[in-house]
């Protein structure tokens, strides 16, 4: 009786040892490259690349390495060590500084609230219902859809103005917030950007931005006239300034000249704890 039980246990242990150490650890054929790439990827599974998770992206990369240039993983681009490992594994070289981006919310408004809103408290729902409850129809609604979707936690809401602000230190430029914003005012810009223009009001000559908030562009051209390095070009059609980052020396004269404080220094990180607002 006892011998029978001991024999049974012995056989079971033998089978288990065989399975665990000999059979199973054989790498699944065809997935060695994927496993290697998966180790390098950050494993955040944020979905910004368009694939459902880092493993799926690694699989796609293993089949087609040029995918890294077409739809790159933004987190890897920001991390030099991982980038080097990935370049070695794929056998390609990437120009991280040209490809990486940062998100910018084109709104800094303190547009007054013109109606009480009650209902589902997400930006998408408020924008669907008559484009929100602020006086400027293009303003950031401040209900935080972008905050919820950011995998790095890099966006916060300025409590005074009720608009979203991106912390450029934490931002990796993945682009999830761009897709989420119902007002379409978030844009991915090059990290070399020096001056940011914070107004999304579609300019129609008979309704100046000044009416809608105190930080909106009024097309006065003072910034254009103040620049001594020809770094600003005036877009006549939209009546807004466009900045050339190569020529800009960040002297700050355009920021001072703007009466509405619509321009900010993009290189200065806006942190939640400091809440740099554009008013002096």
């Amino acid at each position, binding site marked *: 009786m006892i011998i029978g039980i001991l024999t049974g246990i012995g056989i079971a242990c033998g089978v288990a040892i065989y399975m665990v150490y000999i059979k199973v650890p054989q790498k699944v054929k065809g997935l060695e490259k994927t496993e290697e790439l998966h180790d390098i990827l950050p494993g955040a599974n944020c979905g910004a690349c368009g694939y459902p998770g880092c493993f799926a992206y690694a699989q796609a990369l293993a089949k087609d390495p040029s995918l890294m240039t077409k739809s790159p993983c933004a987190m890897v681009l920001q991390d030099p060590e991982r980038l080097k490992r990935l370049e070695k594994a794929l056998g390609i070289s990437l120009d991280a500084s040209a490809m990486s981006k940062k998100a910018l919310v084109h709104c800094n408004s303190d547009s*007054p*609230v*013109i*109606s*009480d*809103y*009650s*209902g*589902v408290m997400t930006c998408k*729902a408020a924008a669907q*219902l*008559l484009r929100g*409850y602020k006086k400027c129809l293009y303003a950031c609604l401040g209900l935080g859809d972008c905050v919820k979707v950011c995998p790095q936690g890099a966006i916060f809401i300025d409590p005074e103005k009720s608009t979203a602000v991106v912390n450029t230190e934490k931002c990796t430029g993945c682009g999830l917030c761009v897709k989420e914003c119902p007002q379409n005012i978030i844009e991915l810009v090059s990290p070399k950007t020096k001056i940011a223009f914070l107004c999304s009001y579609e300019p129609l000559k008979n309704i100046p931005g000044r009416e809608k908030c105190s930080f909106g562009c009024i097309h006065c051209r003072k910034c254009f006239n103040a620049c001594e390095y020809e770094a600003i070009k005036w877009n006549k059609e939209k009546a807004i300034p466009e900045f050339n980052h190569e020529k800009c020396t960040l002297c700050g004269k355009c920021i001072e000249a703007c009466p509405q404080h619509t321009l900010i220094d993009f290189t200065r990180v806006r942190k939640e704890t400091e809440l740099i607002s554009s008013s002096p």
Partner: protein
Amino acid sequence: MTPDNRLLISPGPHLWKGLSVNKIMYQVVIALMFPTGAAIYFFGPKVIPIMGVSVGVSILTEYLCKKLRGRAFIMDGSAVITGLLLALVLPPSIPLWMVAIGAVFAIAIVKEAFGGLGHNIFNPALGARAFMSVSFSAEMTTWTPTRFMPDAVTCATPLNESFVWQGSQASLYHALFMGNTAGSLGETSVLFILIGGILLIGLRTINWRIPVTYIGMVALMALAFGQDPLLYILSGGLMLGAFFMATDYVTSPLTNQGKIIFGIALGLVTVLIRHFGSMPEGVCFSILLMNAFVPLIDRFIRPKPYGVVKVVKKVSSEG
């Protein structure tokens, strides 16, 4: 528009029927007052502390759980109902500390750990009763007589095999109906449960389909097994379970068809447990078992959408 007379924007519709979760919960509490009153009448005022402890501990546990989860605590009456229902399924001689443990289990584990109101799978009061039956089996099966019954300190409930009735069959029915038998606090008086249950059906708070199909199926199955259907219906916790436990919104199916299937299955399982199982009472476990099947029922029993001719995917394109 000046800030002082701002208009309100909210999504449609801008009229409401006036129902609210609080109203529904308090309607159920008022309907539960009938069996509660019957319990106090038949077993004496010594059962009031049991109810008090149960309700009080339930509310306190819910408050603590909500605080731990970082949610706001709303006094919407659901903890009151769980506390009352738990008290009504316990025997009258249960020690108070066991009641408190049961209430904590009901709210913290069966309700809050699964997600809170609206997300729990099992009925909290019944889940706690099952837990207490297993943990404190001796105290949970000690039945005391009512104030109007002749002597004996402990006796058997009508479903127990050792139950002996001195008197005619009709007087047994009368006693079961009025409530003059041993059992847990709330399940003895069928009359008062019926009053509470019909009140709720009249107010459209619960759906008639579940109690009617459940009780009907039990009677049918009793006939099939050669037992007395009326005895089967009137004894045990069937009435309380059919009207107040199985009809709980969160743990019963959404659609009317689903509710009928739920009621029929409940009846089947209850009678099978009573007849073939070693437990004398099958209602508690049958409801818990069917609660686990409710997501499956909800997934497959859906109303037919307007204008959809065939739900099966068609290969060819239609015009």
